[in-house]
């Protein structure tokens, strides 16, 4: 199936950026989990092997084939989300995992990929230009169903990246700028309604408050925000050295191996490391966008931009929290945070992007 012409357009830069990000993530993961033990590092390496296999498979088969599976995949994911909501045991107050013996499955991750494919399929099949209000409703519906199911778990962090996805698809589908602005205004007006209208849980409100003033409760809810800022700040230009960051090593940083892995990096390899990571993510983003631009059809372009929206928004949301610029939301950092479901999904997503890029000249 792989054609020589396809190999010629293989995006080695994208793969290199992936490898650098994954490598940095593993290094930091090693540092963050070294003392607490539990074999998390080994498990992540094992997951990486799984992700690599998934990646190769995703790349090998034409993305049109994968897009053909969009409807059943989407249906399966929504079904799993529903099931997890009903049956799964709550982990730290949230039902988002399947416990499958030796590992736990988080269907919300796979749902992101399924939703991207679903959206791309819809836009592909919808003939004509422009965005009718009917198809806008359709797009909102496709994204809305999994968002609703995930947010009900409740897992705000996993549901958040769906919104930029919807936004990007809507923008690219040719929504008129004027309408977009009106929608944006409505969304802005809804923020206070969401905050005061009882949509947010009390602990989520607390996160917002402590984000605004972390020192108001440095021992309690402001702890994470403050400790992350200390970890980042104390890294300085070159960092405190690998395995030398006191904030991460001595467990002052909570969730240092998942949502706050970037804090560990900033602490141990400093501004140099953080800047490096930012650049890698931006390169990754640029290559995905390039894949979208060069796509041979709507399907490919929307798949690539969908992946860009999800991965990029995750990175932005995660690093924003690390820097103390956003309230804690629980969004993992793609390719770096500990977590098998996230890693495998991200690799599959990037595999699709590579797939689109490779097959831009195929006819």
């Amino acid at each position: 199936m792989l054609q020589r012409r396809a190999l010629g357009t293989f995006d080695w830069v994208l793969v290199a950026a992936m490898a650098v990000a994954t490598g940095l993530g593993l290094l930091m993961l090693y540092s963050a989990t070294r003392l607490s033990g539990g074999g998390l590092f080994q498990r992540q390496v094992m997951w990486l092997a799984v992700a690599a296999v998934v990646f190769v498979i995703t790349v090998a088969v034409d993305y049109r084939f994968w897009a053909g599976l969009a409807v059943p995949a989407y249906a399966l994911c929504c079904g799993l989300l529903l099931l997890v909501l009903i049956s799964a045991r709550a982990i730290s107050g949230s039902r988002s995992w399947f416990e499958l013996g030796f590992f736990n499955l988080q269907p919300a991750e796979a749902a992101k990929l399924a939703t991207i494919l679903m959206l791309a399929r819809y836009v592909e099949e919808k003939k004509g230009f422009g965005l009718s209000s009917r198809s806008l409703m359709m797009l909102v519906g496709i994204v809305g169903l999994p968002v609703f199911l995930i947010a009900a778990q409740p897992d705000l962090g996993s549901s958040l990246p769906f919104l930029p996805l919807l936004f990007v698809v809507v923008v690219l589908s040719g929504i008129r700028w004027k309408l977009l602005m009106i929608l944006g205004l409505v969304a802005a007006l809804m923020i206070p309604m969401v905050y005061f209208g009882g949509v947010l849980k009390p602990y989520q409100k607390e996160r917002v408050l402590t984000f605004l003033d972390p020192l108001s409760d440095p021992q309690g809810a402001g702890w994470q925000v403050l400790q992350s800022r200390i970890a980042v700040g104390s890294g300085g230009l070159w960092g405190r050295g690998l395995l030398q960051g006191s904030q991460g090593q001595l467990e002052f940083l909570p969730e240092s191996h998942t949502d706050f892995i970037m804090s560990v990096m900033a602490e141990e390899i400093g501004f140099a490391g953080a800047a490096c990571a930012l650049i890698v993510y931006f390169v990754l983003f640029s290559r995905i966008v390039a894949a979208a631009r060069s796509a041979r059809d709507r399907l490919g372009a929307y798949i690539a931009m969908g992946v860009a929206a999800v991965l990029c928004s995750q990175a932005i949301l995660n690093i924003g929290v690390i820097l103390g610029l956003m309230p804690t939301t629980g969004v993992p950092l793609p390719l770096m945070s500990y977590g098998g479901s996230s890693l495998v999904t991200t690799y599959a997503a990037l595999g699709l992007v590579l797939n689109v890029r490779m097959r831009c000249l195929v006819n």
Partner: protein
Amino acid sequence: MTPDFKHRVEYKEYVEATQFSARITVLSVFVGAVFFSYLLAFYYLQVVEGVRYTEMAEANRGRQLVLAPPRGAILDRYSRLIARNRPAFDVVLDREHAARPEEALRLVAPALGTSVDDLMLALRKASVRPRHEPLVLASDVSLAVAAFVEARSADLPGISISMGMKRSYQEGKSGSHYLGYVGEIGKGMLDNPEFEGSVQGDIVGKTGVERAYNRELHGVRGQRRVVVNSGGRVMGDLAGSIPPVPGIDIRLTINLDMQRELDAAFGDMVGAGVFLDTRSGDVLAITSRPGYDPNYFARRFTRQFWKGLVEDPLKPLQNRAIQSGYSPGSTFKPVMAAAALEEGVAVPSTTIFCGGSGVFYGRRFLCHEKSGHGYVNMKQAIQVSCNVYFYTLGSRLGIDSVAKYAKLFGLGRRTGLDIANEAEGLVPTPEWKMKTHKDRWYPSETTSVSIGQGPLLVTPLQMAVAQGAIAMDGRRIRPRLRAGGQPASGAAEGDADVIGSRSLEVVRQAEWAVVNEWGTGTRAKIEGRDVCGKTGTAQVFAGSAGVKDEDLPPEMRDHAWFVGFAPLGNPRISFAVIVEHGGHGGTTAAPIVQRVLQKFFESEEKAPHAEPSAGSQVADAAAARAGNL
């Protein structure tokens, strides 16, 4: 393939129609702007503000742990151990390494003399504490229990023995008052300048020598600088730790042989006794009965233990030797004689007739001898303790002179002993009476004071000092419990040595006669030692005069005094002993004195030139302080 080609043409049109490329560019610029602002934010936090956050990170991980210095030992004058530190064993449970503690607790509970339920309750209560903090299951267990736990450690996962230091008083109840005890510093004590530099959690001396020399005994706290994790668990050491400076050993003036003999001689009797070196002021033995075992204070004592001490009608916590004011009774007569001689209102040969009573200021005052002593001179008057003779001296002297000499002998003022809470006693004067009773002084009150009654109150320590002054030609010494250094005068400036030596010779002769001729103190006699003394009874019950003690219930019997010095020719020791409700001093107090003086003379013979050398005993003491004994 045509359909695909068509498809691609349609896609191109679509891309153009929807300004696809432009929209991607707008989104990309937005993302680029966010990434760039993040880069600036990292730069600001890490490079611009980096130093500040580094300090905060250091403050997070650094902790100073107090290293308590080993407390100095307390030694007797011959460097024999009185108080030391002993190893104390706690049975602790490491909750982090005890997966299923119930089994282990079930095994260990009987050995600790408690129930599994109680231990499980303690475990549940501890759940709010950080898990790395060990839970103390039992503190200060016996060596046998510690050995049991160590031996069964394989069956007791997570349970181990933790060793610490506890204060140990070798002599138990003997010497409880002068030694004092230690305990965790109280909240109020932290503000006390005496405990300047102490911090919460310090073990400090609360009373007695432990308190008076706390600063030296305590030593200097060290500091261990450590790295802790967010749970407070110590992960490693930082540079800059300071080792503690051990407290220094304090050598006391106490002669343990005499001290033990004094407490043994008291037996179950209540009272106090003081033995002083008349040349140096060294307190050779001092006791207050009943005592308490200061070792209890070193342990976690119970509420009942404390309640028992506080509510005991015999007040075991009171240091009677320095805190209790007693009527001196007849033991005041030598002071009266000295005053009369010095003021010139009498000479040794002054003879007064005692007919069993005398009328002074319109009131009849009785002598204890109803039939009267007949004509008595000064020596005889002291020897037979004739009241009428001293009533007469009192009326000749007047209260101001009596008070003046009482004070010169150290009564009515603190002796300056180097432990806290000494009582002043009371030497009454007209000014005192006007101030406290809003009434003038009646001359007949002087008559009562003349025989050591009335408002006059003295402590046993003051009486021992006064007898020392009588023995040493009027030189009043400042008593001390810490050995070494120059002896200090107990007299205030300007009033030292006003009693002429010749004027006191008759008093000393009389006191010698009390013990060695026919008198009331013959039970204190030691052959060849020329013990001198004076008995006294302090009335407890106003109607007891003239009633035989044996006929009174014990709590109404008089307090029995015996004071004095020895030997006559070359006085080296003075003493005062009071036995509460002891009846007559000659029968209860004098034998105690005799036993202690025997020990004194034995010690002198063993070490004729008194002061002990350092040598092996000091090494023993150092080892004991380190807890090796």
